[in-house]
Structures are given as structure tokens and as C-alpha cells.
């Protein structure tokens, strides 16, 4: 491709970071120095252009090293990967975590999302603003960091040759202050082991969490690790899919698609290769279940991927994890390496790191992101099982879904289906956060009531009353105290117009300012809309503006504005390309109608 670059050359540091990932350039024509062989022959074209998918890893390498992505660094990356700079710029500027302006090595990301708001994030941010100025310098406001069980949360990154990132949760002002002043980073507070409710005595999906050593393959093997994969190989792919189908397992990422059917389609697809993608881009506000699994039981995730790949005939697997989960990423990478050393893995699994884009949790946006593009969702059909990653048949599963499959293969689909309800089988992980005494990850059978779940989390603080529950995160909807007996199953929540979504359960007591919560959700969608389709791009903006207007002037005639919100909501739901736009008005709509926030 004829690429034109006009910026300053990359710095030595940037070149070292990029070459460290890609190796030295092979020729003058790929950004290197002139070798005698370059004078009379060059190989390029498709072979070079096919490295496009390495763009995000390269961008991370630059930013991890220098703290930001300069024009020179980006252009060198473009030469190495044969990507036009304007396209690469479109990609960098899409992802919130990439900085296009110079900044220091240190970056502290402080979560100000819903669950952290319940734990004083606004006060923390206000105090930081007072001492360190508006966000955007060394500290940044962040959407949900997936540490809601230990709110308020922060993530600190230090760029350099020894890049490091660390989650801090709960974070205090003193700790944040210390970090920003160049002090030592507090150690990641240990995950409080969430109580789990398991059927029978055998233990559920979380049975190894806090029990196995997440760094040791031996420890995993000692706890029955890789038995399911072994069993699957004995049974054969067809039988595995049969069991998964019998289990009536529905995907745990939010869309609740039957896993068996998805696997069957990919297995039968003629085009090759087949790809497996594990969606670990858990970004729905209030959701942290996949993080807990990856941090504490990473070998099970790897085994689940190996099993899915075996059943569906995938040649290659990717695990796409949000960049805000450094520990999970490290544990998974370790688990892949250790498993491969032992000869336990037949499939090649690569970990890919997101860069701050909620939309990349949408399956096709995630494909584009892996391919090195802007995380813009694709129109469906064609569906991923036919035309997915790199245009090939792809099976994409959520982390929790894959963990479920391990037990299905061991116990059999029919046995699995005896737990839960008829239409929602098995156990489900719920991320309970907000105003409960024991926030954490809870495993209950499908169909358990919301009331029982909140009781497991030991309910509200003394003297507090329940105001609302946000079920399913920002893309979900509010449930009122009167609806607490809703069974937590796909069909049970559907019956009251709600959704299980990602399993996020954020509880608000009477002290919560629900107007601020609605505004935060509106801002979240405005921030996270990819901008591709008109209903969502302009609709999320207008939704935020109108909501601000409504909440700022509570006494005027609100009917016209409420009507506008309703109109926008319908167009977003009907005409947006993807689930983000289609659900971007749900929570706000339910806040206005169910919670009557405007009347409060």
C-alpha cells in the first residue's frame, strides 16, 4: 500500500517499544534501514497488510512505554503494519485509554460510575480535583472498572520500559493522593471471598475461587482441572455439543443465545479456519464476575476455551480482555503458557487487550477491535457463526458461559438442566454492589428471587430503606421495591420488562440521588456510543441534553421533553445497529416511568 507519512520520525523509545513487539523490520520497505537486498526485490502486499490486526497491541506497546501515542510513533507503527495513518488515527482516537497528547508516565483512573458513586466516588473525585486540578492530567475519571464489590475503585498505570498497572480497591483519598504525589502504590486489596450459594454439596461455578492457586497448573489439576477437556476428547465433538444443547445453556454475556446452537453452526460451517473468541471485555457497569473468574480460576477459563475450540473445530482462539483488568490478563496469560508447557493445550490462544471501549463487548465490535479497527459493530446478518472474526465462522462465548460448559461435560447436559428453571437452566453469577452490606459475587440457581439475593448480601445498612435496584447494568433497567420477588431467570425478568443482562445487581437505598444516577447512565451511553449510526450517535447526545434540562428545571412543563425522550428511545431501540443503541434508553426510561425520578 502506498502510505504517506509527513510527521516527525519516531523516537528511539517508540521504535524500541514497537520493534520489541514486532521484531526488527525486515527491510527498508517496512520501516527499517536499507539492506542491499532491498534494492531489487520486496515482498509486501497482502502479506504485510494482513498484519493489520497487530495495531492495538502495537498501540499498547507505545503507550505502555511512553504514556501516550505520538504522531511519529503512530506513523512508524503504520509503516511496520502497512496501515494508512488516517485509519490508524481513527483507531487510536476511538479508544478512550489511548492518549493523543503528551502526558506523564503516571495515570490514575478513578471510577465514578454507578456502584462507586454509591461508595463516595463523587466526593473522592471532588477532593482530587481540588488538589490536582481537573481530570485529564495525571488523574482521570473512568467508567466502571469492574471492581464494584470493593468500591470506590481506581486503576493506576506507570508507563515505561517496566510498565505496570494495578487495581486499587477500595481506594481512599489518602492512597490516591499518595500515588499522584509519586508515592508507592498500595497493594491490590485482596478479593473478599464472596459467599456463594451452591446446589447440593459439590460446589458450583465458583468452587475453585479462593481454593486453587491461580498461578499453578498443578493446583488446578489437583482440583479436577482439565478433566472436562479430557472427557470431551473421549466423547467427541458431536457428543459434547449434544450435551451442551441438552443442558439448554444460554449465553451468560447478556444476549442469552443458546450455546449449543451457536456451537453446532460453527462446527458445521464449511469455511476455514474457524475462530474461537472468549469475550472477557466485561464492561457493563456493575459487572465483575468474569474478572473474579479470570483472576482466581484462570485455568478453568483456558480449559473452557480449549473445550469449545475442540467442539467447534476452531483452529485459533482469542481471549479479549478489557485493559482495566491487568491482573486477570496476567493470570490468563500465565495459565495459557503453563497449560501449553504441559501439553494440555492443542489450540493456540492469544490474549488481546481492549483499550477502553464498552462497545467492544458487542461481539462484532470485538471482532473489529481484534482486527485492528475501530470497535464499530457490524450489521447482522451475516451472523458471526458464518462471517465472524477475519470474515470466518466464529464462536464467541462469554467467560462465565465457558465455565458452565466444563460442568456440563462432566455431569451431562440433562443433570445440568435440573438446576434452575425450565427455560433458564443452571447456576448464575450475580454481581451485587451498591448499598448492601456485603457486596460481592453470588452464585445462585436461576430463578432465585431478587429479594433472596439481596438477603444473601446481608441487605441494606441499618435504618436504610430500599429505593431501587438496577438489574443488568446500564443496559438493563430499574426494578422497584415492589418488584423484589421477581425470579432471577431470563423469563422471570422478561415478565416485568427487565433483563438479567450481565448479572449486574446494583442496589440503591434511600440515600441515593437517583437523578444523578440517571444522568451518569445517560453520560455513559453518550461517551460509549461508537458514533456509527445516527439514532445512537445523536440520540444518546440528545437524551443526555434533555435529561439534564429536565432535571435542572423541575417545575416547568415537562411533557414535551418526556415525549421527546420517548420518541428518541423508540428510534434508538428500533433503528440502531447494535445492542448498545437498542438498550441505551432502557434504564433511563424505567427510571422515569418505574421510579418516577422526576416526581421525587
Amino acid at each position, binding site marked *: 500500500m502506498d502510505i504517506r507519512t509527513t510527521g516527525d520520525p519516531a523516537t528511539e523509545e517508540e521504535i524500541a517499544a514497537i520493534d520489541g513487539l514486532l521484531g526488527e523490520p525486515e527491510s527498508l520497505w517496512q520501516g527499517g534501514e*536499507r539492506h542491499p537486498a*532491498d*534494492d*531489487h*526485490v*520486496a515482498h*509486501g*502486499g497482502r502479506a504485510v497488510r494482513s498484519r493489520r490486526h497487530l495495531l492495538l497491541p502495537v498501540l499498547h506497546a507505545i503507550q505502555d512505554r511512553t504514556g501516550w501515542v505520538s504522531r511519529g510513533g503512530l506513523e512508524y507503527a503504520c509503516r511496520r503494519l502497512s496501515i494508512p495513518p488516517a485509519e490508524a488515527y481513527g483507531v487510536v482516537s476511538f479508544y478512550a485509554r489511548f492518549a493523543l497528547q503528551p502526558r506523564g508516565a503516571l495515570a490514575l483512573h478513578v471510577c465514578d460510575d454507578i456502584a462507586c458513586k454509591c461508595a463516595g466516588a463523587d466526593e473522592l473525585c471532588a477532593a482530587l480535583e481540588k488538589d490536582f486540578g481537573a481530570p485529564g492530567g495525571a488523574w482521570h475519571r473512568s467508567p466502571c472498572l469492574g471492581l464494584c464489590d470493593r468500591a470506590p475503585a481506581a486503576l493506576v498505570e506507570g508507563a515505561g520500559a517496566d510498565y505496570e498497572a494495578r487495581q486499587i480497591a477500595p481506594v481512599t483519598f489518602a492512597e490516591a493522593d499518595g500515588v499522584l504525589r509519586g508515592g508507592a502504590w498500595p497493594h491490590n486489596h485482596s478479593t473478599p471471598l464472596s459467599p456463594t450459594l451452591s446446589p447440593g454439596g459439590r460446589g458450583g461455578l465458583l468452587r475453585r475461587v479462593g481454593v486453587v492457586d491461580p498461578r499453578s497448573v498443578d493446583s488446578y489439576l489437583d482440583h479436577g482441572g482439565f478433566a472436562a477437556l479430557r472427557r470431551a476428547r473421549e466423547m467427541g465433538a458431536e457428543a459434547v455439543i449434544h450435551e451442551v444443547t441438552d443442558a439448554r445453556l444460554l449465553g451468560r454475556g447478556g444476549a442469552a443465545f443458546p450455546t449449543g446452537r451457536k456451537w453446532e453452526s460453527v462446527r458445521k460451517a464449511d469455511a476455514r479456519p474457524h475462530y474461537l473468541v472468549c469475550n472477557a471485555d466485561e464492561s457493563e457497569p456493575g459487572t465483575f464476575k468474569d474478572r473474579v473468574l479470570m483472576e482466581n480460576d484462570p485455568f478453568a477459563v483456558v480449559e473452557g476455551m480449549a473445550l469449545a475450540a475442540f467442539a467447534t473445530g476452531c483452529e485459533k482462539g482469542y481471549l479479549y480482555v478489557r485493559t482495566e483488568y491487568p491482573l486477570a490478563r496476567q493470570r490468563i496469560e500465565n495459565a495459557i503458557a503453563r497449560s501449553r508447557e504441559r501439553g494440555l493445550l492443542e489450540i493456540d490462544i492469544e490474549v488481546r487487550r481492549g483499550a477502553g471501549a464498552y462497545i467492544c463487548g458487542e461481539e462484532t465490535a470485538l471482532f473489529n477491535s481484534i482486527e485492528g479497527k475501530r470497535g464499530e459493530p457490524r450489521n447482522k446478518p451475516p451472523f458471526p457463526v458464518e462471517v465472524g472474526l477475519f470474515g470466518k465462522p466464529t464462536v464467541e462465548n462469554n467467560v462465565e458461559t465457558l465455565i458452565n460448559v466444563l460442568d456440563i461435560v462432566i455431569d451431562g447436559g440433562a443433570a445440568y438442566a435440573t438446576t434452575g428453571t425450565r427455560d433458564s437452566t443452571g447456576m448464575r453469577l450475580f454481581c451485587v454492589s451498591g448499598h448492601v452490606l456485603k457486596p460481592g459475587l453470588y452464585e445462585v440457581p436461576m430463578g432465585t428471587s431478587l429479594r433472596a439475593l439481596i438477603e444473601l448480601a446481608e441487605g441494606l445498612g441499618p435504618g436504610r430503606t430500599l429505593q431501587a435496584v438496577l438489574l443488568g447494568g446500564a443496559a438493563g433497567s430499574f426494578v422497584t421495591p415492589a418488584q423484589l420477588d421477581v425470579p432471577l431467570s431470563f423469563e422471570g425478568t422478561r415478565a416485568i420488562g427487565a433483563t438479567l443482562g450481565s448479572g449486574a445487581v446494583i442496589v440503591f437505598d434511600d440515600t441515593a440521588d437517583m437523578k444523578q444516577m440517571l444522568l451518569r447512565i445517560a453520560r455513559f451511553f453518550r461517551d460509549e456510543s461508537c458514533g456509527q449510526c445516527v439514532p445512537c450517535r445523536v440520540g444518546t447526545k440528545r437524551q443526555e441534553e434533555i435529561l439534564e434540562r429536565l432535571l435542572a428545571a423541575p417545575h416547568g412543563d415537562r411533557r414535551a421533553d418526556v415525549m421527546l425522550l420517548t420518541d428518541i428511545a423508540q428510534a434508538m431501540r428500533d433503528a440502531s445497529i447494535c445492542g448498545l443503541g437498542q438498550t441505551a434508553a432502557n434504564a433511563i426510561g424505567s427510571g422515569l416511568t418505574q421510579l418516577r425520578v422526576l416526581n421525587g
Partner: protein
Amino acid sequence: MFGAGGGTSSYREAEETNLIILWGSNARETHPIFFHHVLRGVRNGARLVAVDPRRTSSAEWADVWLGIDVGSDIALANAMAREIIHAGLADKEFIARATTGYEEFERCVEAYTLERAEAETGVPAAAISEVALDYARAERGMICWTLGITEHHNAVDNVLALINLALLTGKVGRYGCGLNPLRGQNNVQGGGDMGAIPARLPGFQDLEDPAIHEKFARAWSGADFPSKKGWHLSEMFEAMDRGDLRSVYIVGENPARSEADQTRAVRLLSGLDHLVVQDIFLTQTAELAHVVLPAAAGWAESEGTVTNSERRVQRVRRALEPPPGARDDIDIIGELAQRLGCGWGRPTAEQVWDECRRLSPMHAGMAYRRLDELGGLQWPCPDESHPGTQFLHARLWKEPAEGAPAPFHAVEHDPPVDRLTEEFPIRLTTGRRLDSFNTGVQSGGYTSPLRKGEALLISPEDGKRIDVEDGEAVRASSRRGSVEVRVRYERSLRPGLAFMTLHFPDQVSTNVLTIDATDPKSGTAEFKASAIRIDKLTRVPAT
């Protein structure tokens, strides 16, 4: 190609082929819209090979770039042929049914081992072999070329060497296969079609064939016109040099700037007894003329047809009134005929075209009405029900093959005339840039943000060796003359290779450097290969 002087394929076929070799063509910049079709082919999975001394913007798209030494095309093509034959990939069946001269060709290329080709071309043997086998194995493959092949002293042999490759592998006469010269000017093809070449009458009909001559003479009321072929451009200059040619009538050409060895061209034109120039501008050539006939612009101020590189005859139409005094070419010629005593009247462009259709079978079906409706028609189009011809030479695949078989031609490598020596160690090659055209007469009319003026492009390594900075003025000299020119560093050029254009003759007369070594058959000069030296200017510091 074997009798018909036009590209064998349609542009569309580039989108649906498996392999495209751009040989001596920087189509990305010189034929940008054809390159769109190539890129669609690439997107559809075609491999792209670029053969070019420079790593051009076209080459940057290629899966393989073969950076041959200037003028070593035949060595490369012959070695590729040998590789194909030795790999057993020659299409023996096609060769037997549709070609002649294979044995001699095989004997000839046998001498072109990979080792020899590597020595002549500079291209590693493995890469030559790779491209040869890729081409032979591709189900469909096409070769496209431009002036990198034809602006050489052995231009015709170069073309024949490429034709040999297509015949050897049966890659002509089928959809998605072919041999395509991309024409440099909007009506180069049409000029040939209309007989504006020394040996042909309209429709590529042989002037020296008595039956053809008779047909035209009858149509032209028994007019007496030559029955022997005339001179091509370079022969005309030779004739001027000898004093055999004393009067010249030039229509729409600027040889005072566009000819190689410009000093000589200007001298010869200036010494003519009578020079008439018909042009839309007072060009440098017109300034030498005794009579200048101001003409309307063919593409926007008058009616007519042109033919493109896929043999598509298309209508040009009058959109503007020409400036006062400028007249349509047909009017001027008609008026001249009148003064010479031939009453041709004042035919319209369509009437002239209809006469052409009556005399040229390949154009017979191309009524203006059809050209308008169909956006042009590709020749041959023998009658008004014919849809035009998408690709040529399907006849070779008929059972049995129809018409004359296609001949192989054994051709030998012959390096550029202007030898590199210690005194003139740098190979200067010339070409075009995207936003400019030829001597800049047309393209100089608009302001292009891309245009940076003339410069001598050299590799940074040569720059450092000669001790000149990027942007510094130098003296560039060949055996024929020298010019002062700014240097520009260009990483895509290897050491020893320099590049200039002909676009800015008012800034730098590049053709002072070029050599007029000319192909005897085509009359094209070796613009692509001059030997030069580059000297740092030593300026006396101002006191």
C-alpha cells in the same frame, strides 16, 4: 498484438483475474483509474507483481516487486520463460494449436539461466523464479505495461518478450488473461486506429496491401495517395538531419520539448524550410513555426471520438465555445483541402466518422447513436448488432484455432545504449507524476497542491556520497548536455538510480540529458535510460 494494435483485455477483467503483472508501469500515478480496477482485483484476491527499477507507489501495492536494472526486461522475461519451461508449466497444448516459432524461442531462452538473469537484472534468482511460476500457475493472469517497456531502443523486442510469456502459458484470448499496453495519451490508441501511423490506414489496414489501397482509393474518388509506408517520428528527424525532409506539418504535438536530445530536435526543427504547427497553444514548437493554425481543444470544444486502452471508442463533445480564431481540426483540414483544390466541403465529425466506418470493418458497427447509448464500444465491432469485443484473440482457443497463429519471437537482451561508465555512473530514468502530464502544456494550467516542481530524485545514499543536501542545486550532465537542477532525496530509489520528469521544461530541460537512441521499428527513443553524472555546484561566495 499479432496483427491488432491494441490491449487484448477489458479493464473489468483486471477485477476478476488471479495475477496482474504491471511491467514498467506506474499505473497508480500514470493511469489512476485503471489502477482502481487493479485494486478491485487485488481486493478480490488477485496477486499483484510490479516490475520496475523504481519502487513506485504501484510497486508498494504489489505482493512482489522486482526492482530490475533499467533496460534488463528481456533478460528477466526470457529467464522467466526458461523457468516456466523447465518446471513443465508451458501450455504445450496451446502452443501446438495456436502458435508458431516455439522451438526457436525455446532455444533462445535456454541461455537465460536464473544466474545470468540475476546478473543482468539485479533481481535475486529466487524472486524471478517465484514470479515466473506464479504467473504460469495462475488460472488467469494478465500483463500490463507502459512506457517502461516502450521507451527503449529495443522497445518492440521488449513487447515481444512479454507476448512470449503469455503465449507460453496460454494467457491470452481468455477472460481475465491478456496483454495490455496502457496508453499514455487520451487518444494514442485512437491515432493508431485511424491510421496515424506510417504503415496503416484506418482500422489497422495495411497501406501496402494493394486490395486495401484500392478500396480506399475508390472511396476517395480515385485520389492519389502513397502506397508505400512513410516515416515514423524518429525517422522524420533523421530525414530532417539528412535534408530529405524540408517541410513539416505538426498537429497537437510539442517535439521541441518532448523529443529526446532536445538540443538536436530544436536545431532540426529550426532549420526547416517550412514548419506548420496546428495546436491549441503557442507551444515551444509553434514558436519555431512559419505558420501557426490555432485549433479548438479536441475534448471540450469540438465533436469526435477517441479510443482508450481497452479499445473502447468513446465520444468527445463540445461543451465550450472555442476562443475567437481557434477552429475545429476538421474545419482547418477541410479549409486546407479547399485551398489545395479538393472540395471536401464542411463535413461534420459524424459524417467523417461514418466514412471511417464504411472503410474500417472493425469500426463498422459503431454508429454515433450506439456510442452515445452504450457509453462507447470496444473494437472490433463489425456491425450494428454487435456488442463490441470484450477481449481479443478468443479465436486462438477455437477448435481448431482460427486465423493466423500467434508467433513467438526469439529476442535477446540488449542493454541500454547509453552505457554507465566511471564518468557517467548514474542511471537516469524518466517518468510521470500523478498530477502532471507530459511537457506540462495542459497540466500546467491548474494549481496542484501536490506539485513541487522539477527535481533530480536520488537516493539519500547517493546524496551523501556526492555530498549534496536534500534540496541543494547540482549540475546533472549526460554525454549530450547538462542542466542545473535541485536534488530531492527519495528513499524509494536505490543508489545509482535517479529520476526526473519531463513536466517542467521551463524549469529544467530534462530532455537535454536524454538520449535519442531509437527503436528502429517503433521510433520511440530511450527516454528511460540515460547515463549521467551529478556534480556539486561550486559557487564563488558573494563578496
